[in-house]
């Protein structure tokens, strides 16, 4: 599109504590190493304490960090309800990559509300979009730690991003706690293998 001001617009959604910031940092840093301009917006502060969080990452963009509605090329959702919550950010040709393992909000655990059926969420999203859905927590656990689910998701998104895999893996190695490098590299590769391109 000629009016495009950004090479690739990515929205990352999830729950405070899931590691959405590390996920966007790996991507943002990889892009800067490639020489791209990057604009990103993050949720900090009050909204972090188990709340719904969303990061915008724009690769090859030199204007503002906020992606317009229906403007994202990819929605990377670390949690199924948070995929649905931010779906209006995704453009018509955009792809949803989502983790199917839910994190229940307090409104469900102690507030008496129901958590929606994850299959129904996936079904709904598939009506208008290409959806890649899998249990990233299970994969991360297989890689050595459930905490690496965010890196599994980054790996899954990697095929869509205008970035080199080696650069991204270098960033993963530099940015995760040293003791967990092997687990996270494995998590990244297992996530990447979930997506056929």
């Amino acid at each position, binding site marked *: 599109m000629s*009016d495009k*001001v950004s090479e690739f617009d990515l929205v990352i959604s999830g*729950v*405070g504590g899931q590691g959405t910031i590390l996920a*966007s*940092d790996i991507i*943002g*840093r990889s*892009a*800067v*190493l490639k*020489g*791209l*301009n*990057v*604009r*990103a*917006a*993050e*949720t*900090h*502060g*009050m*909204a*972090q*304490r*188990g*709340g*719904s969080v969303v990061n915008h990452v724009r690769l090859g963009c*030199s*204007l*503002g*960090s*906020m992606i*317009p*509605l*229906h*403007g994202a090329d990819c929605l990377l959702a670390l949690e199924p*309800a*948070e995929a*649905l*919550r931010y*779906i*209006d950010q995704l453009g018509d040709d955009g792809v949803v990559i989502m983790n199917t393992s839910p994190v*229940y*909000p*307090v*409104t*469900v*655990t*102690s*507030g008496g*509300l*129901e*958590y*929606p059926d994850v299959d*129904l*969420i996936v079904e*709904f999203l598939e009506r208008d979009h290409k959806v890649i859905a899998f249990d990233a927590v299970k994969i991360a656990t297989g890689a050595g730690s*459930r905490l690496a689910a965010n890196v599994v998701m980054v790996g899954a998104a990697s095929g869509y991003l205008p970035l080199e895999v080696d650069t991204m893996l270098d960033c993963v190695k530099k940015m995760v706690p040293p003791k967990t490098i092997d687990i996270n590299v494995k998590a990244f590769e297992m996530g990447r293998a979930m997506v056929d391109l």
Partner: protein
Amino acid sequence: MSTSEYMLGNVAIARGIVEGGGRVISGYPGTPSSEIVDRLGAMKERDFYVEWSVNEKVAMEVAAGAAMSGVRSVVTMKHVGLNVAADPLMTLAYMGVKGGMVIIVADDPGCHSSQNEQDSRIYSRFSLMPCLDPSTPQEAKDMIPYAFELSEKFEIPVIFRTTTRISHGKSDIKLGPVNKDRPEANFEKNPSRWVMVPANARVRHPHLLEIQEGIRQELEGSRWNELDLCEDAQIGILGAGVSSVYAKEAIKKLGVKASFLKIGTYPVPAGLVKKLFDRVQKVLVIEEGEQFAEEMCKVIASDMGSNVKICGKSDGLVPKVGELNVDLCKKAISVACGLDTDDTDVPLNTDIELPPRPPAMCPGCSHRSAYYAMKKVFGKDAIYPGDIGCYTLGIQNGTVDTTLCMGGSITVASGIYNSGEKRPICCSIGDSTFFHTGVNGLLNAVYNRSNITVTILDNRITAMTGHQVNPGMGLTVTGEPTVQIDLETVCKGLGAEFVEVVDPYDLEATLDVFKRAKEFEGTSVVIAKQPCVIHARRSGVRRKPFVVDTDKCTGCKQCVKLGCPAIEFDSLAKVSHINQMCTGCGLCYQVCKFGAIREVE
């Protein structure tokens, strides 16, 4: 080789302070400003002084003292912090500075993490200090060295206004050289300059007015303002600060022809504004917050006798509340240009009901335990004035009835008591907030004999803003040991006669202390002391998690009602379940009447 680094806006601002040769940097944590001082304090090597001050007024005065001594100084705070520091701010404008001084204030349009969305640019008009308003993190960094120079040239502090999307945005940042050539401190005695008694203040006020034209001219020619005239455009669009990049994207997306004036300074560059007014019939002003630039533009148009139509917030084209974005700018520009608008914000066509996900206290947060005991003792009818910190989330526990501002718990409690309200009053305030402005409130309550209970939720850190040190911790921002201020001693020193410290994880003991505090005639203080669970875990504290014995669980939901994210209810089996988020605080174990919760072996 890469010359750019991927940085958080606040980290870029910190870099700007280093590049500009900042010598004394003070601040009080507040979202979205905190990472500036965090970053400077965490640097392994530094040739400047940095501190977390106890509040913004204190921080402002520390930075002012340094600037009076001829060195470059910075003070950082969130927007509402500038209200706390407004007293020194207003007179500092008269007094001026010698070394460059930059007042960094972070606005939060949309109240992401704030109690209001005030527009700090207005303080620049009020105080007559120049104001800079960056549009990107890169510009934010680059503006800081300029701000020091501007401040020194006119011997007046400069307000640097950032917003959430600049401070918590990330971007590739091109670094600049570090200014090594910096003056040594030398406080020159000069009473007519530094002593604002009426005789001196009366002289400094006209001086402040006299330098305004020079400041205006200097800003006019700065690179932060940019006029891009489009040959046959009928409309001019003026974008201020971060809004300018949203407006540029919207113009591009809509494909409209418009002359564009990007503004990054206040007072607005009147010369550029006039040039724009001469070329178009209509100008749309796009800015977040108040109609600040818009009003300045109207005054300029009126002064030059221009018939240009100025629109923006005053006629509802640009929203007066919340954050702006590209979609809102597109809508405003479309209306201003008489184009059709396509509404992109249509609700989802689905029956799936999405449960809201508000922020909640962490699993094992000591505030939950303290609030549980507080409510048990004081009852549902008691009045619970609250304060600002993670514990404001106690609104979900029914133990936060008011939240006004930092330190506004004890004082509001006193006011409610003195109104003649007969119900018991128990307020809560965190350790850092108590040091910030709670001390004065407690002193006032004790002195004026308020019959209230003050609970200091002492989690041994400033948690909400990202775990900054405070005077209770025995550490400075750079990690050096210092005096550890003892809350109990402080409270007793302020005259409180009932002061007790208790571990909120010990439910029985906490209930007992609250009972005695409630019975006490006068101002009683309960210090609920237990480190923040996140910080404790990072420091290596591990407690055994708990598990539900499903045979013994009756499904009474007493544990579920605690609102702990680690406790779920299995509605099919009608039993509680503790998930992997459990940190082992033991509150649910103590609450369960059926002995159905036990430690994992």
